[in-house]
């Protein structure tokens, strides 16, 4: 009995390690090869890099791949849409959740339907060029925000319902205007849901590739994903540089993941699990 239990225990732990290693190897591969010189990296194996580490890969990539510009572009796009999305989604979900009229229910359904909807990029370009939003930074920020809104509204809507309505009533009796009530009383209480929306929107927009591919022909406005892909095409034989580029591009994502794992998991599982 005890021997059997021990064997099961070892087996499940071993299995967990095997799956974890399979999940980690590709990332390890990138990490190791970004510190090798071009000749050693051409095999793309898991051997440890030889000393001295090829730190100049990073400097090389940053200058050749125009990474400084791309980094700032990505940062502007992500932060801009994160801020816009958080405020718009919170305001919208708050009213839709608090005032449960037929019209508001319909509006909620209409917005949440966007979680499944695909974008018709061909027609989108026509509309965006009408508003002069093609090849423009504000255009990308507005589009990212529009795409991230449905899920953010969904998340916020569930959360607003948990905040007691008594607060609103007391504040209104004290003479708070609707705008004051929302920004000074309700908005601060939405912090946990806001954190989730911020983290998820950041990750999704930082990783976004399709929209800039359609909308941005001007390489000065490319985000990291587009320039890393372009770099991949140009330096296909220099895996050390490609790995360094991938590492730099993924670094913010991994950082946000490690810091905000709690919020990511709660956001990604909401709606899927009761409670």
């Amino acid at each position, binding site marked *: 009995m005890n021997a059997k239990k021990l064997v099961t225990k070892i087996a499940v732990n071993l299995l967990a*390690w095997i799956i*974890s290693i399979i*999940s980690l190897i590709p990332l390890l*591969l*990138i990490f190791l090869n970004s510190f090798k010189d071009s000749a050693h990296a*051409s*095999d*793309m*194996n898991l051997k440890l890099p030889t000393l001295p580490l090829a730190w100049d890969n990073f400097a090389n990539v940053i200058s050749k791949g125009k990474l400084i510009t791309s980094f700032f572009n990505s940062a502007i796009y992500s932060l801009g849409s994160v801020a816009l999305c958080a*405020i*718009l*989604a919170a305001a*919208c979900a*708050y*009213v839709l959740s*608090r005032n449960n*009229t037929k019209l*508001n229910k319909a*509006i909620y359904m209409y*917005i*949440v*339907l966007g*979680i*499944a*909807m*695909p974008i*018709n*990029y*061909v*027609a989108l*370009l026509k*509309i*965006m060029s009408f*508003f002069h939003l093609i090849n423009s930074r504000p255009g990308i920020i*507005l589009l990212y925000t*529009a*795409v991230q*809104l*449905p899920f953010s509204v969904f998340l916020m809507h*569930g959360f607003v319902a*948990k905040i007691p309505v008594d607060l*609103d009533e007391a504040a*209104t009796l004290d003479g708070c205007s*609707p705008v004051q009530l929302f920004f000074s009383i309700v908005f601060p209480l939405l912090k946990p849901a806001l954190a989730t929306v911020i983290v998820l929107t950041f990750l999704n927009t*930082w*990783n976004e*590739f*399709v929209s800039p591919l*359609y909308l941005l022909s001007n390489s000065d406005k490319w985000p990291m*994903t587009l320039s*890393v892909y372009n770099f991949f095409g140009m330096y296909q034989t220099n895996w050390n540089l490609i790995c360094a580029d*991938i590492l730099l*591009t*993924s670094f913010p*994502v*991994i950082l946000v993941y490690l810091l905000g794992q709690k919020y990511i998991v709660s956001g990604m599982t909401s*709606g*899927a*699990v009761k*409670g």
Partner: protein
Amino acid sequence: MNKSKTYPLYFTFGALLLYTILFVLPGIFGIGYSFTDWSAYSDKLNFVGLANFKTIFSADENYFKILTNTLAFTLVTTVLKNALGLLMAVLLTKHIKLLNFHRGVMFMPSVLSTLIIGMIFTSILDPSIGLLNTFLNSIGLGALAKPWLTTSEFAFGSVMAVDIWKGVGYIMTILIAGILSISPTYYEAANIDGANSFQVFRKITFPLLLPTLATTTVLNVIYGLKIFDMVYAMTNGGPGKATTEVLYTAVFKMFSTGQYAVGTALSSVMFLFMVIIGYFMIRVMTRNEVIE
């Protein structure tokens, strides 16, 4: 308290405006454009009726292959991600050392950029220097080393496998949350009755997890139908004629070559299809809110 005054409708206008103009309108205008001969080569739009849809659904063109590819991709990845994700979730709700470490590591691939994952795997699956074939050769399984991405025989399967590798941790995470929300009293009762672990899974965990599995299925289907980055980075529709071509990569090719009308017709088919799926998805997802 007057609700409409305290919660004014204009709070929703910002979100509604952006969402409608940049998300819904393209879908609806796109349906309109599908009945025209819109292209990069002429300034005039002519009404052509159902001609574009006839092109899409005709058997002699590649478009039909593109539709079936997309559906096959969606079906295979959905089934396998659910099955493997369920196994991993059951494994990671047992008493395992470093449980949170394992959960975190297995979830990590799903937060990384799909495009970058695709690029990394073009190296790993390279026929001669790739890590996978080198590994197979080194443990004496050289016969299993194949040209994964360069032959039509294996390319689509390889792309699907990488997508499963990337997405399974996400499904696992949702299912773990689902398993943890099952009341422990069921398990205590089963323990008293002397049920073995397989019986516990079949009679308790699995049935009570079905609603969660319904959600993961819907999420997978939505994701699968929209797949673009993975295919674009790994094979870009090749090798050969439309071996791994899916809807979004085909639309992008039509856009790049100026065939706007066919591209938008293909997008519209997808749009209508997914709005219908979306409707059911919302019913599933908002069901939980109602219970609260």
